[in-house]
């Protein structure tokens, strides 16, 4: 037994070796690769044969329907090609599982493949779409490609047995990736955004509701023409956007019209002159225009006469004293006055030429005590005054009083103010003082103290001309003259300058003073020239005094003038005023009162 089995074993091995040496063997195991149904009516299965073992091998496909025991063999091995089995319509049952196996048989043996369960409805893979066409469409817009195709011939989509979905893909020859488009159930599709002058490849495939995608069709080539792309939509958007922006800007400009105008074209300030009316100028009447410029009251031309202080009027009352204090008065009067506007003349008390009326009103004096002060135009040399600053421009500071020769009257008695450092140099306020009789001056006299005004605080470049100051400070000493018979009420009285004492003090004496010195007796006489004789030629010969202490230069001028006067035939008075000047001139020592109005024409020349 042992030897038989051993022998069999050895023979088998030898047979195998021989067969291997001969190259024959039982077939290898075949394998079913796929089963497909193109239209859900038939299907085909393919298998892969294994090693044939060197011997002719036959393959048989057997199938068994679900829940049956019958094994059937493939009805058609030919139709589908090599190693395939085609199931026709009769052999195809839907919704039924097929158990399919393939058996390979050769001389040495047979081999069975693994079984495969197949349900036809799940293995549907349609054929490729047919008749694919790609056409370039030229219309109003940019050219595009319209791809059209037909369904695969075998698929029965008309009865609804199969529903197919289509898909196409496009690319250029040189591109790597395809661009896929889904066409759903349509059989055509428009492809846009293709580049001009290029050649494109197009392919189409389809798929049933439940199943596999078909194979791609053969490539269809389409050439895009050479066209200029008109990107209309972009330009439309740009246009609309810019129009929108323009609208917004216009609306904003309209809303902010004024502020923009202000920013771009700032208003140019026009010239303005107070009181200047352009309309008048346009009308051409220059007179009216310039008249409107004239501010009433400035320059105070009408009051010019008041500026000519002919005399100092001193009002005497028994208990009252006229105290003229520049410092105090200026402040008082200034306080009472309303501030004047900046661009008009100061006028009144501020001005260099003092307006007596305004001063008197502003000062609020008592009725009795006021004196009129005028700027003494005694200036012997006007150069001094002019060098002391422009008199026409009042300072607009607190010391506005300071720059002007303001003379005010105040009822304050017994004030002796000297022009201090704060006072303007040339503003002299005569101050009437109550003077003690120790001065040995007649009580009726008012003493005007000529005092040199101390130099100011550098407001002026030149020190005031001491010896010939324009404005002198007068300290009027109000001597008690109440018993002089001066009416207690306010009344004007003239005073005459008696003499100038060596201390530069003007001694005044009222005209109505009965205690006049006898020197004034011939005052009247000496107001006028005496007529010496009348010549035969009807010429008046005037008497001329030779013993004068006048300034020689003056006298000579007038002498010549007087000669001319005398030589005239006409009997008209030959300006006796001049003669009077000649005689009186600067000699103020009681020969008569100083008529400053006479002097004015002379000073005008300066």
């Amino acid at each position, binding site marked *: 037994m042992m030897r038989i089995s051993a022998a069999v074993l050895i023979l088998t091995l030898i047979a195998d070796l021989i067969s291997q040496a001969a190259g024959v063997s039982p077939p290898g195991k075949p394998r079913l690769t796929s089963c497909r149904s193109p239209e*859900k*009516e038939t299907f085909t299965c393919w298998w892969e044969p294994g090693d044939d073992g060197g011997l002719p091998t036959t393959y048989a496909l057997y199938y068994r329907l*679900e*829940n049956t025991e019958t094994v059937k063999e493939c009805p058609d091995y030919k139709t589908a090609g090599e190693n395939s089995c085609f199931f026709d*319509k*009769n052999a*195809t*049952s*839907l*919704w*039924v*599982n097929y*158990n399919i196996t393939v058996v390979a048989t050769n001389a040495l043996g047979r081999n069975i493949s693994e079984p495969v*369960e197949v*349900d036809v*409805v799940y293995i549907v893979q349609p054929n490729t779409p047919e008749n694919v066409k790609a056409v370039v469409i030229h219309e109003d817009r940019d050219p595009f490609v319209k791809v059209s195709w037909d369904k695969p011939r075998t698929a*029965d989509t*008309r*009865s*609804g*047995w199969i*529903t197919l979905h289509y898909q196409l893909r496009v690319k250029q020859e040189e591109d790597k990736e395809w661009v896929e488009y889904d066409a759903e159930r349509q059989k055509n599709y428009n492809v846009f955004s293709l580049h001009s002058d290029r050649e494109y490849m197009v392919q189409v495939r389809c798929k049933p*509701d*439940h199943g596999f995608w078909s194979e791609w069709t053969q490539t269809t080539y389409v050439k895009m023409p050479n066209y200029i792309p008109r990107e209309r939509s972009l330009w439309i958007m740009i246009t609309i956007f810019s129009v929108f922006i323009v609208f917004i800007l216009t609306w904003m400009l309209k809303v902010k019209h004024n502020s923009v105008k202000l920013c771009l074209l700032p208003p140019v300030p026009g010239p303005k002159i107070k009181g200047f009316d352009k309309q008048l100028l346009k009308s051409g009447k220059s007179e009216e225009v310039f008249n409107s410029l004239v501010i009433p009251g400035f320059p105070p031309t009408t009051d010019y006469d008041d500026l000519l202080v002919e005399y100092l009027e001193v009002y005497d009352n028994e208990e009252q004293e006229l105290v003229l204090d520049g410092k105090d008065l200026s402040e008082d009067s200034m306080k009472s006055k309303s501030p004047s506007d900046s661009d008009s003349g100061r006028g009144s008390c501020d001005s260099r030429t003092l307006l007596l009326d305004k001063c008197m009103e502003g000062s609020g004096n008592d009725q009795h005590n006021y004196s009129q002060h005028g700027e003494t135009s005694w200036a012997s040399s006007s150069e001094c005054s002019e060098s002391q600053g422009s008199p026409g421009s009042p300072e607009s500071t607190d010391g506005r009083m300071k720059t002007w020769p303001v003379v005010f009257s105040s009822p304050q008695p017994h004030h002796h103010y000297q022009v201090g450092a704060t006072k303007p140099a040339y503003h002299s306020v005569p101050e009437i003082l109550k003077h003690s009789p120790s001065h040995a001056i007649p009580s009726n006299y008012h003493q005007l103290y000529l005092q040199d005004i101390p130099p100011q605080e550098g407001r002026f470049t030149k020190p005031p001309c001491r010896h010939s100051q324009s404005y002198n400070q007068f300290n009027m000493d109000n001597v008690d003259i109440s018993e002089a018979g001066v009416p207690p009420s306010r009344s004007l009285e003239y005073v005459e300058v008696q003499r100038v004492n060596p201390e530069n003090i003007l001694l005044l004496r009222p005209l109505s003073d009965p205690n006049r010195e006898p020197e004034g007796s011939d005052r009247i006489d000496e107001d006028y020239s005496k007529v010496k004789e009348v010549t035969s030629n009807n010429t008046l010969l005037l008497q001329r005094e030779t013993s004068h202490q006048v300034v020689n230069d003056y006298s000579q001028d007038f002498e010549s003038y007087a000669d001319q006067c005398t030589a005239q035939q006409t009997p008209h008075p030959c300006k006796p005023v001049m003669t009077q000047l000649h005689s009186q001139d600067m000699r103020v020592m009681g020969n008569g009162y100083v008529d400053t109005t006479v002097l004015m024409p002379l000073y005008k020349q300066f």
Partner: protein
Amino acid sequence: MFVPYPLHVLINQAGNTCHSKHIPIPTSKSEIQQISDSWLLHSVLFLVQSWMEPLLYLQTTLDRYDDAPNALLSKTKWVSDKLLSLEQGVVVLIRKMLDEGIMASSTIFDHTQSPYDGQFPEVLESVIRDYHLLTCFKKDTHKMETFLKLLKCRQSNKLSCLPQ
């Protein structure tokens, strides 16, 4: 609920057939295309009604699994609801197309047909059974779809829907 491939053999060998086998439904296109509209509609209705209870059962069993995905559960429920709607639609079609009045209820099918009576087999067996159930359901719904599509075509264009 992945069923290992060797178990497929188990499923087939177990002879688990879909319960709808009891209904003689033609399996080829030619046969089906020769079926009348009435038959198509009734078949659909029958199919719909036969699957109502099994879907309910499926929901309960899927809940019992610990690692059943939520998508599966939600889908099962959703399908169950859709089935109800489908039944109502078919009833309407039968009434309109066939002029027949039919009550829409799931009491028609036989309870004996359903083998799911409160038995809770072990997990693997239950999984296999559920898997099989879903497979059958998929097939039957495909049948319904096909029938309805045929009906639709017949309604729109009778000539084109004739068998070629």
